[in-house]
């Protein structure tokens, strides 16, 4: 690996930068130093300030205090356009692509080549093709509409768009989370080549193996401040996590019960479930008292499987049985009904799980309105009682139940979403990456809760991107690849090695035989 010559003066420097949002302090006198020709990783828990840091550099928000120096000179950006002009380009997690415009239009959106005052389409197309080539995605047609492209292709367009601006500092905010494994490898090649060309790269990621492969140096943020900067590879993963959470770290998972054989029909039985080309012939079961995990790389169909079970998808073929009785939920309303009794904790709590401006109480009772009403009229006393019970059960920190849900912290918001569904007394609980973006303390509370619910007789199916959760929480883990169940791991078989191997579709494995998805 040929490192470019390191210059002594950094290309980018942040000193004492602070930012407040209302009563929340996102950044507290943060510092950061970035050199050209180096890849610099930024780590930290959600809420540690990484996103705010990036947004300040990219010109999306302005800092309350402190300064940013580019090439030694102080700069202040009042818009993303200003930051781009200075050579700082950022690729965000929420894509900044316009869905109804073409790839070429998107790549050249802010400063297209012009002729007679109008956009020169031919020159723009050449520009786009160039950028796509540099980004390692020459197969994307420049005239395709962005909204017709799958998520991983869109991310590649986003990267091409950033490269087309000829940046000097490239910032990636979890930019690889939507990519397929093959694309990730291609992007890494591109990034390493750019480093050699002298680009300064700043990237946020939670994936330790990516950081290990790419980064030259790392900085850990905690509570809005820079707590440590070190050369990559000089700290163990545990040490890093401890720096991130500021205390001694140990994954604490509640103990799993020994496997017990039951004669009863499994609570959830799925046979030959297929949908579009995203789910292929999936079969598995989940017993009462069991926690089944869905693993595998992002985008292999795990989310779609949960949505299909919950009745959100149309055109699902295959068989679903609940406690032996055939059922085909055609909507969440049907799936929630007593006859089926399913609950889904959705992917994005802010847009799918909660109505943020409405009160905590209104959100909590929203899925169980029949329980707190008679004949359509809400019984206020019953509602307050049940809500208090749930807040107690889940230990939700809230000043008063009338506070808007948007005022709660991420962890508490997720607890409200879970509590909302528990109020509906489901017997099958589906969870879509429930601990994403949640602080460690709340995560552990959720693990304990899931095990308790299973012990009380629920069947739990949950998708997570965190290997430790699959290993620590699940009785069985189904690893999905390309929409099909690649491997079923039981109990002690669930190891990181086995998970990664099956996720990447490599390693010694036998094809999943019929019945493999169910407990013996």
């Amino acid at each position, binding site marked *: 690996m040929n490192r470019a010559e390191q210059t002594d003066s950094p290309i980018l420097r942040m000193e004492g930068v602070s930012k407040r949002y209302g009563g929340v302090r996102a950044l507290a006198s943060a510092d950061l130093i970035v050199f050209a020709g180096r890849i610099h990783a930024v780590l930290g828990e959600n809420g540690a300030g990484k996103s705010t840091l990036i947004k300040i550099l990219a010109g999306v928000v*302005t800092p309350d205090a402190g300064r940013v120096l580019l090439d030694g000179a102080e700069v202040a950006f009042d818009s993303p356009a200003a930051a781009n002009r200075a050579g700082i380009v950022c690729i965000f997690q929420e894509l900044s692509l316009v869905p109804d415009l073409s790839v070429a239009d998107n790549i050249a959106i802010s400063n297209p080549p012009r002729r007679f005052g109008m956009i020169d389409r031919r020159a723009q197309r050449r520009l786009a093709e160039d950028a796509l080539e540099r980004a390692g995605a020459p197969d994307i047609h420049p005239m395709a509409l962005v909204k017709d492209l799958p998520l991983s292709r869109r991310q590649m367009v986003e990267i091409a768009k950033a490269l087309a601006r000829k940046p000097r500092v490239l910032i990636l905010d979890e930019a690889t989370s939507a990519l397929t494994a093959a694309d990730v490898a291609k992007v890494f090649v591109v990034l390493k080549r750019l480093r050699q060309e002298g680009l300064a790269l700043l990237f946020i990621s939670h994936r330790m193996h990516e950081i290990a492969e790419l980064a030259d140096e790392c900085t850990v943020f905690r509570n809005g401040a820079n707590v440590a900067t070190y050369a990559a590879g000089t700290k163990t993963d545990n040490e890093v996590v401890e720096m991130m959470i500021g205390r001694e770290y140990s994954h604490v998972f509640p103990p799993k019960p020994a496997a017990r054989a039951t004669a009863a029909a499994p609570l959830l039985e799925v046979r030959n479930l297929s949908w579009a080309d995203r789910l292929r012939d999936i079969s598995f079961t989940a017993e009462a008292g069991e926690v089944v995990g869905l693993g595998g790389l992002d985008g292999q169909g795990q989310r779609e499987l949960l949505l299909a079970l919950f009745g959100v998808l149309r055109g699902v073929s295959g068989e679903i049985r609940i406690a032996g009785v055939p059922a085909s939920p055609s909507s*969440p309303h049907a799936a929630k009904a007593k006859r089926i009794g399913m609950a889904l904790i959705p992917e994005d709590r802010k847009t799918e799980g909660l109505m943020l401006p409405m009160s905590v109480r209104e959100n909590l009772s929203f899925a169980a309105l029949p329980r707190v009403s008679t004949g359509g009229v809400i019984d206020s006393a019953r509602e307050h009682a049940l809500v208090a019970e749930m807040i107690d059960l889940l230990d939700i920190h809230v000043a*008063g139940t009338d506070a808007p849900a948007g005022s709660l912290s991420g962890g508490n918001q997720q607890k409200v979403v879970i509590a909302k569904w528990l109020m509906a007394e489901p017997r099958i609980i589906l969870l879509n990456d429930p601990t994403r973006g949640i602080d460690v303390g709340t995560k552990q509370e959720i693990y304990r809760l899931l095990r308790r619910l299973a012990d009380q007789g629920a069947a739990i199916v949950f998708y997570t991107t965190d290997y430790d959760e699959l290993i620590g929480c699940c009785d069985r883990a189904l690893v999905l690849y390309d929409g099909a169940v690649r491997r079923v791991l039981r109990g002690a078989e669930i190891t990181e090695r086995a998970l990664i191997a099956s996720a990447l579709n490599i390693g010694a494995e036998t094809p999943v035989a019929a019945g493999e998805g169910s407990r013996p």
Partner: protein
Amino acid sequence: MSEGTQTRLAGAFLRRVDPPVAIAFGCVIAMLLLGSLYSRSFLSPEYLLQQLKVASFLGVIATGTMIVILLGQIDLSIPWVVAVGGMMSTAATGWGPVGEAMAIPFGVACGIALGLVNGFGVAYLRIPSMIITLAVNAVAQGLMVVHTGGFSPQDSSSPAMRALATGEVVFGLPNALIVWGVVGAGAIFLLNRTTFGRAVYGIGNRERAAYLSGIDTQRVVLIAFALAGGLSAFGGVLLAGYASKAAQAMGDAYLLPAIAAVVLGGASILGGRGNYLGTVAGVILITLLQSILSVVQMPEAGRQITYGVVIIAMLLLYGRESLAR
């Protein structure tokens, strides 16, 4: 007191007294005081009661409009659904004693039917509400043109209709006002104390989350539009009762005021936020404004301009979207 506690307490107080509602009522009072400078009769009970009676018609219509706006949708079929209500109820009156007795329910039922078409289009066919209600408005107009043969409708309203709209039964309070009061009380109960109302606010806030929470969002939207249609038609029935007969294009003058009243009352046009008391204030505000402008004998041109400027000014006061920075 910590900053957090202070913010929470202020928040709790503000939630009791919605700022837009307070501002709207404040403007009503301001307008009355201003008018009293022109003439003392502005503060007389007779004038105030008369205004409230006139406001009742708009109030009934605006109730339906508000429910639809809370969902995050819009109902542009008000003009001709109002006309349908008026014309169908007067027509039924002419169909013998049974027809006369059923005139009011029949008029309202026609409105509900049109509302169901709106609701079906929005909920099940996912057609943008703006365009389907526009189409239904055009169809309703077509139906009424055929029904009246292009002439002014000649049917008279039933005695019941006239009594509702113009009579006074209790302590000199206009019946129309009592009708609005009953409708309003029903709306407040529906929106605040029922699961339907909770679902309406939820859908208006975030339809995706409401859907994923297992709410039958399609049924709620359907019922909401049906209610709006029924209430618009009921407004038409009352108007026909007031004038003793229906008239061509009788509902045209109610579309924009209904929407304006709801928005001036603090409801967000995007849905999910709004208080019925605000709509009451908005309705009274608009009615007063129109009345004052006519009493000072401002020509129609000046009235229109004042009307528009006042709405913009009030919206700028509290209707602005927040700057996301």
